[in-house]
């Protein structure tokens, strides 16, 4: 089936540094999402993105977070600066349509470890 690729699979950085998580969504999809999963806990919505804009974001999407997809390249999640509580697995997803009647396809996740 359709695949969403996330790069890297694991990232280790020091607290205070900047990190960029990359997502290569399904090729004809237009809606993009980031979810955060702390080890052993449920997945939480962070943000969704369409037509170059953030459509909706949750309280977890702190001011230090930003997303973009320049010129149809990777859909990225940037955290600057990182904090210890940012350690989690970040899942990217994409869908062809927004709202109802859409199926989200998820990547395998990027495990971020902030030391």
């Amino acid at each position, binding site marked *: 089936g359709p695949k969403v690729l996330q790069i890297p699979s694991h990232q280790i950085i020091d607290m205070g540094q900047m990190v960029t998580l990359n997502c290569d969504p399904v090729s004809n999809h237009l809606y993009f999402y980031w979810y955060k999963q702390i080890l052993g806990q*449920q997945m*939480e*919505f962070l943000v969704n993105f369409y037509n170059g804009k953030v459509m909706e974001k949750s309280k977890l999407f702190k001011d230090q977070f930003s997303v973009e997809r320049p010129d149809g390249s990777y859909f990225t999640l940037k955290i600057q600066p990182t904090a210890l509580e940012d350690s989690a697995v970040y899942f990217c997803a994409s869908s062809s349509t927004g*709202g109802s009647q859409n199926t989200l*396809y*998820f990547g395998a*996740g990027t495990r971020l470890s902030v030391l």
Partner: protein
Amino acid sequence: GDKVKQSPSALSLQEGTNSALRCNFSIAATTVQWFLQNPRGSLMNLFYLVPGTKENGRLKSAFDSKESYSTLHIRDAQLEDSGTYFCAAEGGSNAKLTFGKGTKLSVKS
């Protein structure tokens, strides 16, 4: 409280047996998705549901929007069914999914 409650939180099955997982919603869910997260962390789509039922091989899922719940039935459980099953509900615009905490399933031979 949790907007999407999954039960049970963990389940151990003997190979070849049947079981059912459940999600109860305290939000007005319009669609439901079920995912299987394998031990490596990857998420696989199992079902996308509007109110009604769907079947795929040994899996069958139902979503009742009036009673605010969804079920996932596993028939003839196999070892490869092991993993964490998540349900997620969409309750409004912008395709924001609210996930349950998952059911960790272990199938043993």
